[in-house]
């Protein structure tokens, strides 16, 4: 089994819109997107956060029974995943390809969690049983598997922005072990007043929401995953912001900080967006590895490298 891993597709849901192209345009423009105010406690000022614009017309897949009452984080995850899967989705649903699913989240279904707990605090006996199941971290990955009919491997990883990089490493392991034919890695988050309140304590700037997804394949594609660095955990409590030692000094990089002014702080989704941005940069520099440096906010730093491979078929 070859140890090489390629990117067969990518998807983005972000405050710029639903799709990789709006993300690219927003990144190129470099201007902060519109923000909306979220309020939590009556009489107190709210927080300005970046929101994903509603999708119009609403695509058919969001009418799936599993998504009807799902939280936004699940819908974002599915939206990004479907874009990343592209034509492979049909082959997966027909059982021709075994798909692994890995989701990375930091806050996960925070909106339903906050609402459910507030109901508990008022009167636990009337807290809604419709909300509680959506509070589990693996709800987005579960819904995604259900919509695709995938009964194979499905993990949800919890962490900061670096969790998306961990997910890519795990996906590469599953591919190299022959456990799956494709592996989808999704980073997703949703906005909530509670998250904004927490982020405000750390001067992280306006929070954001959305998802990013990469589909990994062992079959040659125009973009190759070239490396994932050893993570540097913040055991001493001090996040590092220096270049990661395993990244060659001359290689171009994309940082989380570069996207933040345009898209806000998207936590696990931002880890995914940075990788998509690195892929877009790599496509413009054939033969060079471009690294997404995921200096997470409170866990670890990890680097993910991508390279454009000139001799493969055109990208979708």
């Amino acid at each position, binding site marked *: 089994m070859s140890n090489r891993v390629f990117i067969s597709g990518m998807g983005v849901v972000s405050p710029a819109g639903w799709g990789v192209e709006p993300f690219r345009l927003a990144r190129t423009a470099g201007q902060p997107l519109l923000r909306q105010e979220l309020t939590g406690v009556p009489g107190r000022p709210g927080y300005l956060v970046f929101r994903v614009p509603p999708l119009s017309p609403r695509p058919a897949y969001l009418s799936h029974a599993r998504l009807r009452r799902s939280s936004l984080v699940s819908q974002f995850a599915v939206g990004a995943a479907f874009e990343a899967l592209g034509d492979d989705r049909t082959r997966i649903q027909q059982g021709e390809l075994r798909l692994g699913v890995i989701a990375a989240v930091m806050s996960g279904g925070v909106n339903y969690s906050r609402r459910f707990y507030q109901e508990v605090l008022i009167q636990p006996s009337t807290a809604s*049983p419709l909300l509680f199941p959506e509070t589990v971290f693996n709800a987005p990955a579960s819904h995604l598997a*259900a919509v695709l009919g995938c009964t194979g491997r499905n993990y949800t990883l919890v962490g900061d922005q670096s969790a998306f990089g961990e997910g890519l490493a795990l996906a590469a392991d599953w591919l190299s072990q022959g456990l799956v034919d494709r592996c989808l890695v999704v980073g997703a988050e949703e906005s909530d007043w509670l998250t904004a309140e927490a982020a405000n*304590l750390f001067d992280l700037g306006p929070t954001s929401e959305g998802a990013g997804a990469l589909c990994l394949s062992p079959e040659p594609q125009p973009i190759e995953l070239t490396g994932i660095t050893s*993570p540097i955990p913040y055991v001493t409590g001090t996040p590092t912001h220096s270049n990661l030692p395993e990244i060659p000094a001359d290689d171009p990089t994309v940082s989380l900080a570069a996207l933040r002014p345009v898209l806000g702080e998207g936590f696990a989704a931002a880890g995914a967006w940075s990788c998509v941005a690195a892929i877009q940069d790599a496509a413009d520099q054939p033969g060079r590895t471009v690294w997404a440096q995921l200096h997470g906010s409170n866990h670890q730093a990890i680097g993910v490298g991508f390279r454009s491979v000139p001799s493969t078929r055109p990208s979708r």
Partner: protein
Amino acid sequence: MLFPRPPHSGSPRRVLVTGAGIITALGRGWTEHAEGFRQGRRAFRPVRSFPVSGQRATLAGELDLPPHLPPSHLSPRDEARLDRAARMLLWAAHEAWTQAGWTPDDQPLPLVLGTTSGGMSLGEAFLRQACLPQPNRRGQATRVVHYQAQHQALDLMKAFQFHGPTTIIANACASGANAVGHAFELIRHGYADRVLVGGYDALSQLVFAGFDSLQALSTTHCRPFAADRDGLALGEGAAVLCLEADSFARSRDAERLGEITGYGVATDVHHLTQPQPDGLAALATMTAACAQAGITPEQVGYVNAHGTGTPLNDRAEAAAINQWAGDWAPHLPVSSTKASIGHLLGAAGAVEVVVCLQALRGQWLPPEIGLDHPDPLCRFPLVTQPQDQAFTHALTNSFGFGGANASLVLRR
């Protein structure tokens, strides 16, 4: 580099358990648990950690945390910030680490943890304080940071002075089993010589109220696989394992507590919270785990069932065990230790691996005392009395919300 991995040649490596730590409502440590599980002791009481008076159920496997923490490299300031879940994790890790005889060194040591809630009690406290009419930010930053599971991982690294890649798996109630399975695969495929792995979860008001809202909690007492079962009981605790490649453990003459030989994982896409009635995903994981272990159901001497005590879970799991074991089912002892300590959610899979290791080493089966009327769906014998048994292989099941299913096979 996490990728590309150095090429590993040769056959998959054997994975030994050389340290195990456990803390639950039954007590603290290997010996106390071995005695408790062997006798089928039950450890439930009215919940004291948070108010439950407005709910259908009031009992849980709640533990009394020791007033102090085990010795570690955490400062008093660090220790003061640990929530209940982190303290449980630290106790279990200390026992495992000490038992394995590990010492800090410069080599990266992967850490794999399974949890559903991390430091949820801190998250709850954050929300309660954030919603006060007059904002009070005192302590809020600490609550945000320590609520998150990645911080509990960092605390462990600091406590035992190691570093390495961390993987935190949140696959609902299969998290602990998935964590052990992932650690098993890291060693088996040559990605690491040793891995520290565990599962942990503390009782929290949100989760307790959540299961209560679903009417999944027993209002009497939890009795998995009973014909008249009426729900699960929640519990809390942690279990941590030191896993090593066989060659690595032998090179340092480490004592082996047992061996992990098989791991199966599948996703049930039937419903977010309900299993497919025939237990097809469970059947797939048991079949895959045994295939990897190179054994047949006839060679399995004991199944530690997921066995939550809810009508739907136990029916689906019974169907899966019946089909998987086939003609061997009437000879296959099965029990659920959730009857003793409750459902530990993200900790359950790791805790139940420790139970299986204890049973394999002691050659006994953990009973469900007081199970008088087994569900006739169960074609397999349920262990209802303390029982000695010679056996070599055990299988443990873990299933969770979202359709997360995992099975592990252990060898004596």
